[in-house]
């Protein structure tokens, strides 16, 4: 019995909790991409940098608060800063929209050109971020670091294996759940949300029934800005903020969005968790788990690892390729291109 508990603790500590956290971060990012895709009909490659921009704004405002001596008790000060940072990010989104995207939307340019334009915005934003905050690592996590420490858990339960839960992991999962519930309530219950869905479903019909496309586009960017800021800030809070990381993070985020069915919010969330867990499950070494569960004579000497951790990123793309081969619209049938 103790052996089973030990192996469960191991799996929880190294797969379930990190997977839920990373999956939440991916899901929030993928939701942003899916929103833009559903309404504006293009793949926004600049979304990673938008997350970075949101995280940067959060850091700057956190520093401001800290200089006034304002903290949030045992929670990170950054949580207080996120609403303000989100406002800044929304303004930036709206600025890129009116300066860049709006012109091409009115011209009804094809999605491929739109995609390349977003790559241009990506590089501009990346440069802007380096200009403002520089390329260095930034740590902005204060408050209590742990909800549960590995050592405390061992003493509490008497098990061999420890279980650690970081405050940022708890916050990430909690905020993601709240935000997703809010988003679905907005899309399904409010008039504006319904008009967005209508516009996304059939642009011409929506226009005929008197929906103002400019308003829909602006609301989309507001939502995207909030999602990007929260996703970026949570990722930076949980790991550490490195500006150039987000350029790579956008790859698994895109994989999540496409895997779930791009344009479909439920798909984005499921995609995020599928990608996160598959990366962890395939690169985890099961030596100790097997050691606890199997009789001593069968205890393994090797690591029992499917893939070296070097191939972590590859896992998400292999899954993506398989899903696209079997079901080109993604798991939840998003819009096909």
């Amino acid at each position: 019995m103790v052996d089973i508990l030990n192996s469960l603790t191991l799996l929880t500590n190294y797969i379930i909790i990190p997977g839920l956290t990373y999956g939440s971060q991916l899901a929030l990012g993928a939701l942003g991409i899916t929103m833009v895709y559903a309404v504006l009909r293009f793949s926004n490659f600049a979304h990673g940098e938008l997350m970075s921009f949101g995280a940067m704004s959060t850091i700057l405002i956190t520093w401001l608060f800290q200089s006034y001596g304002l903290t949030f008790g045992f929670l990170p000060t950054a949580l207080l800063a996120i609403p303000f940072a989100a406002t800044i990010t929304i303004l930036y989104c709206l600025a890129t929209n009116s300066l860049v995207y709006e012109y091409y939307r009115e011209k009804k340019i094809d999605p491929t050109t739109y995609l390349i334009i977003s790559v241009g915005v990506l590089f501009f934003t990346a440069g802007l971020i380096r200009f403002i905050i520089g390329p260095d690592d930034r740590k902005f996590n204060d408050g209590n670091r742990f909800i549960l420490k590995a050592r405390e858990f061992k003493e509490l339960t008497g098990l061999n294996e420890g279980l650690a839960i970081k405050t940022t992991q708890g916050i990430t999962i909690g905020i993601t759940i709240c935000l997703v519930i809010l988003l679905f309530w907005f899309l399904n219950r409010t008039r504006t949300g319904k008009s967005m869905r209508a516009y996304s479903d059939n642009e011409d019909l929506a226009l005929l029934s008197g929906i103002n496309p400019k308003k829909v586009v602006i609301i989309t960017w507001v939502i995207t800005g909030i999602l990007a800021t929260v996703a970026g800030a949570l990722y930076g809070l949980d790991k550490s903020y490195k500006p150039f990381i987000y350029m790579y993070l956008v790859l698994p985020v895109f994989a999540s969005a496409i895997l779930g069915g791009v344009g479909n919010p439920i798909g984005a969330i499921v995609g995020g968790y599928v990608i996160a867990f598959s990366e962890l499950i395939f690169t985890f070494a099961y030596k100790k788990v097997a050691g606890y569960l199997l009789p001593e004579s069968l205890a393994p000497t090797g690591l029992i690892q499917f893939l070296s951790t070097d191939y972590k990123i590859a896992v998400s793309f292999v899954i993506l390729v398989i899903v696209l081969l079997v079901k080109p619209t993604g798991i939840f049938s998003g819009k096909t291109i």
Partner: protein
Amino acid sequence: MKKILLATAASIVLTSNVFAGSHSKVNIGIILGFTGPIEALTGDMAAGAELAISEMNEAGNFEFGEVSSVRADSTCIDAAAATAAAERLITADKVNAIVGGDCSGVTTAMLENVAVANGTVMISPSATSPALSTVPDDGLFFRTAPSDARQGQVVADILMDNGYKSIALTYSNSDYGKGLADSIDSNFKAAGGTVTLKAAHEDGKGDYGAEVAAMAQAGGDILVVAGYLNDGGKGMIEASLDTGAFDTFYLPDGMIGDSLPKDIGPDLDGSIGDVPGTDSPGASKFADLASEAGFNGSGPFSPESYDAAALIMLSMQAAGSTNSSDFKGHVMDVANAPGVQIFPGQLAEGIALIKAGYDIDYVGASAVELIGPGESAGNYREILVKGGENTTVRFR
């Protein structure tokens, strides 16, 4: 049209004359990773090399007059950027010799593509990969840092002496990390220890959870992190502490710097490590000179940088030429016995002795003794992290 051409031609002649005018003095290039994974160290390293140069200029008895230095950024990891920077130093800044590079990968790239092609002497203060011992270098490459083949033995000794019999080993997926990890692996096994897992980590990632999970499953008394302190190495340590996978770490030279204990906090206390260093009188003399000049001279590779610059200038004097092909043969003579020992702050005496026809043995800040293909024999400082600082246990 003719006039414009004539004017252009004339101005080219004029400007090239101006350039030629500046050639009479000696230029030394300092190419280190001022940005990138060891940027926390390179400030003090460059200051070390520049201290030797300013000391020489103040003394004023160097035969070739004023020495000036030019900094360039090797980035530590980007071979293309480093090669371009070295190319610029040699072709545009007309340097006579180079102090650098810092990390093994970029150093190899610069040596093979630029230094050998242009016949320029390169003395690296910190590239430690064993592979650099055998790279064909036309006798142009030296290092005041020891090869990691030696560090591997020291690491194995320190681990054994501290009672660690089983280690997990993670290394930065770079020339430095791989070379050092192989050396630690073979030496530690030869000493009777077990390596539960030897796996690479990539630098520049945000999340090292999966890498640490694999290390944790393999087990081991201590995690040896052969990486970089501003990059993946730090990430591995943070992720290990977060999940409770390991609580003590072994930190080789790339991980020793004041910033690491500060960033990680009290959790790093009790971890051990090593960094090239010596208790010879030269080290403390250099540390005094450095604090006068306003930088930390006991930081990693700062003494080695001073020595690299000093060796270049002393060898030039010994050869009576600032040409790399002339003075490359004198580096070993100047650095090794027999001769009068020269310590930091005594460069002027060294020059005077050479001028008077005496042999010198440059000891310098890091007890330089060049062996084999022109690399330091290697003295190490054993480190214990205590109270948020790297403290010295003893010298090996």
